[in-house]
């Protein structure tokens, strides 16, 4: 893994994914390890993202590394018309690793090809956000004790949700059963269903929660965004059908955990927050340990 960029979740093999997940547990047990002494990491956020940026920068600081960079493109030379190519080549002369968030899709892949140092994709438009996926997997492993043979219900925007697509691809290594719960307008695209069929992975599609909550080990919630609907009326019709309320968890399995990539708007009612099955805030915390595992693996210090 040393020297390798992480652009898409498919860049990492099953064994590499498992290694990151195990390493994240080590870092959680011992979160301050000065493994990056003398290393500089560039944090290039061409669009703002508070959570992801702070999570990465916290990970770097806990590893004893130093951070240079910018938190939105208005404070970078992009405003002067510099291309992504030039910015990337320049910065790769300064830093040992680049962490990048960019509004255009494919930007991280391109940057990884022109950079002389590895690039970690912290989100390229609606395309990929692999560190989110790895922290999701770490959260699943930590709460279930395994990644194998789990029943995973994914709810909300399954059409445009990048976290959903990456999660599906990463979990496909571990023989899951999927339940996809979404409005018809936002159902899982065919290309992912074909991907699952080719791998003999079972899945069912639903247009309401129904009984699937009670079968699931993981309930992965995402936001149904109003702007995804051509007709505002269509959104109004479905918006309340995909809100999770505490009472709906009453007959769910004891080991169930509710995950959400955050930010949440209204798709998980606040009365769920105090349920021990609500895991989304711990999930976000797991992001720091997972990113420590990713960074230290890529820099070859662990």
């Amino acid at each position: 893994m040393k020297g390798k960029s992480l652009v898409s979740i498919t860049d990492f093999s099953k064994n590499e994914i498992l290694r990151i997940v195990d390493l994240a547990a080590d870092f959680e047990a011992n979160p301050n390890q000065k493994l990056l002494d003398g290393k500089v990491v560039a944090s290039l956020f061409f669009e703002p993202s508070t959570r992801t940026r702070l999570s990465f920068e916290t990970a770097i600081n806990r590893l004893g590394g130093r951070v240079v960079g910018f938190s939105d493109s208005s404070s970078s030379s992009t405003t002067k018309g510099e291309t992504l190519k030039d910015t990337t080549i320049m910065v790769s002369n300064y830093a040992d690793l680049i962490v990048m968030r960019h509004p255009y899709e494919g930007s991280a892949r391109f940057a990884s090809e022109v950079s002389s140092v590895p690039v970690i994709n912290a989100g390229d438009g609606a395309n990929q956000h692999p560190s989110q996926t790895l922290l999701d997997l770490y959260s699943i492993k930590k709460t279930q004790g395994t990644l194998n043979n789990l029943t995973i219900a994914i709810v909300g925007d399954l059409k445009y949700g990048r976290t959903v697509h990456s999660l599906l691809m990463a979990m496909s290594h571990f023989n899951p059963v999927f339940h996809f719960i979404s409005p018809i307008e936002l159902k899982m695209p065919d290309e992912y269903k074909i991907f699952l069929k080719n791998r003999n992975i079972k899945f069912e599609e639903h247009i309401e929660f129904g009984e699937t909550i009670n079968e699931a080990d993981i309930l992965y919630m995402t936001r149904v965004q109003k702007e995804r609907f051509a007709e505002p009326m269509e959104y109004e019709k479905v918006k309340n059908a995909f809100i999770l309320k505490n009472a709906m968890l009453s007959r769910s399995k004891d080991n169930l955990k509710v995950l959400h990539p955050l930010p949440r708007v209204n798709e998980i009612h606040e009365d769920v927050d105090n349920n021990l099955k609500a895991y989304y805030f711990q999930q976000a915390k797991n992001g720091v340990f997972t990113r420590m595992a990713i960074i230290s693996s890529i820099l070859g210090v662990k």
Partner: protein
Amino acid sequence: MELNKELKVSAIKDGTVIDHIPADNLFKVINILGLHSITNQITFGTNLESLRMGRKAIIKVSDKYFEDDEINKIALIAPQAKLNIIKDYVVIEKKVVEIQDEVIGIVKCFNPKCITNQEHIVTRFQLVDRENVVLKCHYCEKVTMPEHFTIV
């Protein structure tokens, strides 16, 4: 009938005849093969009647033989193209074109938010479905279908 059509474009002594090009894509084929910037004698005809294709185009390039890699670049927009290799007025070999597994620098990515549509980046696709000619962008990972092919 077939003979008649052939007569509309004169025969060549040595070189390559590319037949069965969709008439609408003639100039794209010329561009992709760089025929607009070579000094060989070239004759072409377009909007010729074809029983199979409706309207077709044909290109005859004197004293030029294409490498497979080069000629396969036109497969995306002229999948039925046939090549006749001519030596001394005789067809010595016939070839068909084949789409490459990796398509570089020919079509644009259909995704407006793809970085290749923002900066000067050579496009690159994997052919993920040969039968339906579906291309997956190496960069943004979105697919582009034949009905959305725009030549770079």
